[in-house]
């Protein structure tokens, strides 16, 4: 029983990490209908920017917010410079551009900052408040992910810009016809996703340590979690990630050998997708002809 509770908490805190990444993925999907798999490397790069500033003696929270702002700008610029020219190209070309961004950021980070693992500080105090099952940083991560979720949900559902963004993801031509500047919305979506990714990177780095490869695993899990829950839905992405974190741990503990748990988790996700093609909480867009 003790082991079960322990694994449950561990799964939840892992799930929160996946969820922070999943939120960035959902954000960009909600604006552009694209699933940006360079998102993880963008988050990694953001974390390095923060680390660099902390090294210069900038206080944590100032570095935190500057990093978010810088990442936002980088996101907007990435959309403008790298994605805009291929916006009307087939999906595959865009995928390859994502891959290009992925390898460039990875390689540059290694070149500039080095490949050895680095300690990234947590903003939360180290003394555990709630026993040994869960650290303060993990609790803090869950709280921040929750706050981001609420903010994203409110932004998308209760603001005009958020509504416009959802419109852009669905039908760019119609958006122009109601007077929305689609280009700006796409840029904004990339910027916000990069900003969310920056938060994710800064939350994940203290746990997995900072190095250019820090996101390689998290990205897989983040995507899997987002797709499991429903990639068009921030709630679904978070819940999907938490489920993935817990189920994966329990599988690895009680059912199969740990080395197979990712494979089995992915097979389960596919099985679920076969039954619910838009994820557990995903919406199907009905179209009556």
């Amino acid at each position, binding site marked *: 029983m003790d082991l079960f509770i322990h694994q449950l908490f561990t799964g939840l805190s892992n799930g929160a990490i996946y969820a922070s990444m999943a939120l960035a993925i959902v954000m960009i999907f909600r604006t552009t209908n694209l*699933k940006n798999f360079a998102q993880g490397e963008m988050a990694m790069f953001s974390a390095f920017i923060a680390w660099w500033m902390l090294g210069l003696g900038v206080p944590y929270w100032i570095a935190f917010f500057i990093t978010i702002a810088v990442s936002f700008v980088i996101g907007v610029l990435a959309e403008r410079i*790298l994605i805009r*020219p*291929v916006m*009307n*190209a*087939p*999906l*595959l*070309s865009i*995928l*390859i*551009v994502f*891959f*290009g*961004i*992925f*390898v*460039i950021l*990875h*390689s*540059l980070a*290694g*070149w500039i900052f080095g490949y050895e693992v680095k300690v990234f500080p947590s903003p939360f105090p180290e003394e555990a408040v709630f026993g040994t099952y869960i650290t303060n940083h993990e609790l803090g991560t869950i709280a921040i992910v929750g706050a981001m979720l609420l903010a994203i949900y409110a932004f998308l559902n209760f603001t005009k810009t958020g509504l416009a963004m959802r419109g852009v993801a669905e039908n760019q031509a119609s958006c122009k016809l109601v007077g929305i500047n689609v280009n700006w919305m796409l840029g904004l979506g990339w910027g916000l996703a990069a900003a969310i990714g920056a938060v994710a990177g800064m939350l994940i780095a203290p746990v997995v340590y900072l190095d250019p490869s820090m996101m390689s695993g998290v990205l*897989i899990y983040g*995507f*899997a979690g987002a*797709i499991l829950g429903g*990639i068009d839905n921030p709630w679904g992405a978070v819940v999907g990630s938490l489920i993935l974190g817990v189920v994966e741990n329990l599988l690895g503990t009680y059912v199969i050998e740990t*080395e*197979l748990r*990712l*494979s089995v988790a*992915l*097979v389960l*996700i*596919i099985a679920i*997708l*076969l039954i619910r*093609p838009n994820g557990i909480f995903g919406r199907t867009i009905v179209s009556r002809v």
Partner: protein
Amino acid sequence: MSTATINPVLEPVKAPPGYVANRAILTGGSRQVTVLALIAVAIVLPFVLGEYRLFQATQVLIFAVAILGLNILTGYNGQISVGHSAFLAMGAYATAILGIEFGMPYWLAIPTSGLICLGFGFLFGFPALRLQGFYLALATFSLAVALPQLLRYKGIEQWTGGVQGLFVDKPAVPAGLPVTPDQWIYFVTLFVTIALFWAAWNLVRGPVGRAVIALRDHEVAAEVMGIRASIFKSLTFGVSAMYTGIAGSLSALSIQFVAPDSFHMFVSVTLLVGAVVGGVATIWGAFLGALFVVFIPNVAEQISSNATWAVYGAFLLLVIYLMPNGMAGGLEDLFRRLRARAPGR
């Protein structure tokens, strides 16, 4: 004329899910001459190139087959797979295990490995049918992640060699042939490549190919025309897996070693890069893509050994921006422009 209305004809030109199909640089007789000339060059090549260059040429052919396999699925049928490294691994391991456990000669092991991948691809294609776009990508990706893990699994390591991998014997040169083993594996690869490209060339132009392309461009309409989507798509998946599996088999014979690390999911992305950079839904693009994925990393390493992959990524973006239809499309544009310039044509 009745008042029954049909929507206005003029629609903005939308990009199809893949690229415009079948861009042919050359047509008719001149094409045949070119192909024959290329084959002739390919046959002379091993007697001109040094050993290492010959090895690279073999790798280019192997990658071309693997990329063609992916292209059949992704380019012609519009299904994106980021899991083809799994079929590469399957073909390679099948050849290794058939040789080691059953003593099967390589010339039998190559087609057998292909058939095993065909079967597996077909079976995988069935559930994959229900998934589209990125969900299919996730499913195939899972395959690429899971297979190396399975290959390392202790329970089956007596066959797979587990984390250590397996050695594969190089095909023996038939008695009396005045070629080295390296030249022989090149010729075996060349023979298989020509056969598979010829088959693909005919396949996409025949009724089956038209059905597959129709499914890509408009599934519902194709079904109305009587094309059984489920069978065709699964079959496409199978054929695609077979091509890539055969490439894996050739790769095992030429590298002489298979290990789980050889089939990292990164290889899947490399194949996809080759397909897009070469030109999706082109037969010859696979060759250009193979040249890119084999040579550009080395060129990038020469430019910067510290940030090799940043240079590689820059090359990649450059190709995508400058040649949106891949190198095959880009070359076609180039030819057209040159021809337009040439006086008296």
